């Protein structure tokens, strides 16, 4: 392979990015070396097994990927802002919508949610860490390596261009011979390993490590949604693993699972993809529901309305989510019976979701609502998400779907579910739990700018898309003529995307401003909250709880405050056993990244040789007998005195 085939050349936009990426990397290396921070980075972050630090790394990566996916979105909006635009050509547009979809779902939504789960869930159930801290680090690093491998595609070799769904036969090697789709198959496979491991880790943590007295039905709602999401991950991700493995065999090793000519069936890919893909959207939305539940209860100053109904409805949503996947391809030519059954199961999902919406409204009823930024996001979620939900029921009707299928109506629908459902939730969660992670609050005033710009921009961007969709514009069209009459609406949509981007910029500015100027004197419980994570210092001490809390009922921390139980005695403090840092997860993940990179370019022999690194890393891990270390009781007591003050 020649060098000019290896690097993507000939497009000024991409050349600009290549130079920018090169300069940024050199700049970072120089800066870290200059500040002598390499050792600190390695010891404190890269090899850490602390769930809070891993969570923070997930969140940083998620925010960076949000930026990247957002730039993709802005480029699409610029291209369609006017008829016959010549900003991107068809190929470039195809690559941009593909990476936008993949990055936003798998490398933005997933890490932000898993990051917040990592930080909050163990604290909420009164645990010292997750069940398998080292596996948790491996989860993060495989995700990160997978994400980076996917991201370099646009400067090295070329990006995947068959859509985030990568349907065969287009995604097969006959019609997409370039390496782009290999990136899709390999990078998502590596990241998927981490997600599956996270799912298992969270299930074991919740089932085995809850504080004494915390029965499952007394567990905070966010932890409940984490449990159910994790079960869904374990159920659904293996399907994607298999589908991607078959895709890899087809593309790199000449198999024909999805090619008609070789006796395969491209529809099998659609079937497998959505068997994973539909549960996946509930995997991202359920933890978001949990976050809203916590935020709404805290800032309505009431306990959550209808706790049992909430639990039943998330379990019902999870159960039904495995039974609806055909609604993504009603038009594939299924029998009438198939379409009818899946139409009904799809509409049934609206029932438990509706139950949840009413429970949130009843939680707020007669509450003394505090309009903090976190609460504003939760309030905006309800009407916006309902628009997404109602249009979803329209799409659920198989007969009507023939009209909506693959139009911008559909695109507008799923942005109305995923942005209020997931992005608003992540923002609510970030504003709410930020003090727990970093020891200071984000600024409320700049936060209002962030909120209004983002919500207005979001509606301006996606509301017009419902109408051009009904008017016949199919998704993924890179250009259109003036006679279609779509120009004005798409122009509004493009302006909206700039407002949306300004909202994101306000968030970034808010983080910067608060990092520099916000008060550090906020105590452990700045919101007067209800659940156990607030019984710790801000930022949380490395061992989480000096003494494992005894749980008596829902909203345990609220009761502790009411009953004056929120103190500890010196004689109760014991040595605390902690897991040691480990370099194996990052080394193993980087090894997977190297092997993956060779597989992308179909250099199979090199990949096989470097696979020895992975196997070696696994063997080395089996002989790692490090049993961790102890923090002496005296030191624990000193730390507790420092933040509690009054002991």
């Amino acid at each position, binding site marked *: 392979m020649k060098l000019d085939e290896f690097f993507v050349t000939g497009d000024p936009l991409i050349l600009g990015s290549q130079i920018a990426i090169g300069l940024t990397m050199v700049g970072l290396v120089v800066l870290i070396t200059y500040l002598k921070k390499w050792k600190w980075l390695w010891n404190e972050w890269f090899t850490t097994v602390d769930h809070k630090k891993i969570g923070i790394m997930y969140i940083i990566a998620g925010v960076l990927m949000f930026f990247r996916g957002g730039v993709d979105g802005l480029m699409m909006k610029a291209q369609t802002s006017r008829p016959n635009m010549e900003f991107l050509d068809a190929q470039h547009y195809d690559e941009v919508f593909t990476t936008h979809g993949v990055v936003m779902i798998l490398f933005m939504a997933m890490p932000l949610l898993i990051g917040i789960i990592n930080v909050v869930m163990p604290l909420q159930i009164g645990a010292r860490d997750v069940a398998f801290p080292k596996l948790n680090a491996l989860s993060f690093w495989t995700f990160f390596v997978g994400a980076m491998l996917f991201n370099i595609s646009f400067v090295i070799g070329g990006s995947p261009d068959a859509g985030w769904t990568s349907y065969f036969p287009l995604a097969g090697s006959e019609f997409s011979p370039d390496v782009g789709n290999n990136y899709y198959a390999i990078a998502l496979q590596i990241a998927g390993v981490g997600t599956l491991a996270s799912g298992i880790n969270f299930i074991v943590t919740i089932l085995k490590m809850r504080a004494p007295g915390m029965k499952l039905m007394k567990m905070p709602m966010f932890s409940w949604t984490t449990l159910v999401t994790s079960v869904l991950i374990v*159920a659904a991700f293996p*399907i994607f693993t298999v589908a991607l493995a078959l895709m890899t065999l087809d593309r790199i090793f000449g198999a024909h699972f999805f090619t008609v000519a070789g006796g395969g069936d491209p529809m099998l890919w659609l*079937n497998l993809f959505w068997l994973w893909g539909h549960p996946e959207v509930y995997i991202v939305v359920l933890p978001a529901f949990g976050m809203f539940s916590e935020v709404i209860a805290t800032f309505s100053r009431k306990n959550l309305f209808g706790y049992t109904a909430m639990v039943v409805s998330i379990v019902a949503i999870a159960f039904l989510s495995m*039974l609806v996947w055909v609604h993504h391809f009603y038009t594939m030519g299924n*029998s009438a019976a*198939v379409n009818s059954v899946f139409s009904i199961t799809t509409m049934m999902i609206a029932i438990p979701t509706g139950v949840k919406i009413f429970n949130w409204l009843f939680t707020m009823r007669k509450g003394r609502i505090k309009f903090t930024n976190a609460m504003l996001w939760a309030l905006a979620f309800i009407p916006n998400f309902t628009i997404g939900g109602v249009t979803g029921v329209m799409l659920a009707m198989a007969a009507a779907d023939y009209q909506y299928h693959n139009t911008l109506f559909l695109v507008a629908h799923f942005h109305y579910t995923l942005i209020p459902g997931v992005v608003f939730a992540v923002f609510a969660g970030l504003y709410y739990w930020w003090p727990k992670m970093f020891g200071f609050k984000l600024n409320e005033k700049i936060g209002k700018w962030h909120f209004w710009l983002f919500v207005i921009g979001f509606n301006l961007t996606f509301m017009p898309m419902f109408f051009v969709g009904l008017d016949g514009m199919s998704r993924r069209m890179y250009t259109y003529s003036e006679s279609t009459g779509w120009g004005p609406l798409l122009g509004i949509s493009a302006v909206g995307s700039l407002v949306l981007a300004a909202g994101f910029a306000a968030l970034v500015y808010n983080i910067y401003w608060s990092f520099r100027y916000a008060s550090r004197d906020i105590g452990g419980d700045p919101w007067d909250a209800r659940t156990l994570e607030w019984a710790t210092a801000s930022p949380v001490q490395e061992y989480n709880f000096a003494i494992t809390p005894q749980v008596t009922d829902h909203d345990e921390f609220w009761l502790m405050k009411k009953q004056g139980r929120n103190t500890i005695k010196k004689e109760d403090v014991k040595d605390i056993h902690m897991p040691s840092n480990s370099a194996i997860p990052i080394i193993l993940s980087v090894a997977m990244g190297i092997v993956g990179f060779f597989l992308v370019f179909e250099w199979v022999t090199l990949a096989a040789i470097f696979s020895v690194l992975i196997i070696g890393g696994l063997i080395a891990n089996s002989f790692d007998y490090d049993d961790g270390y102890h923090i002496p009781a005296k030191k624990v007591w000193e730390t507790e005195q420092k933040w509690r003050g009054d002991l």
Partner: protein
Amino acid sequence: MKKHFPMNHVIGFLLSIALTLFALFIAFETDFTTNVKLWIIGAFAIFQALVQLIMFMHMTEGKAKVANIINISYSVFLAVVIVAGSIWILTTGHAAH
């Protein structure tokens, strides 16, 4: 904690490889009709699943009976949905006629 050689895992690992190769052999190197091949491979798949459950998932060892029952029924539910559902969808559509 007593350390002993993980014999079950090694047997399970070898059996999994052998069963997979066997299925490949049946599919590529024999002259059975497609229908017979599918039945044989299907039988191997079920046997393989049992190997996984017993050798790796310790299905027979758990103390928590209720949890085991929930796990098994959920797994059966998933397997039926994925396998039977896929066959139903892919064999009854327009393309199949």
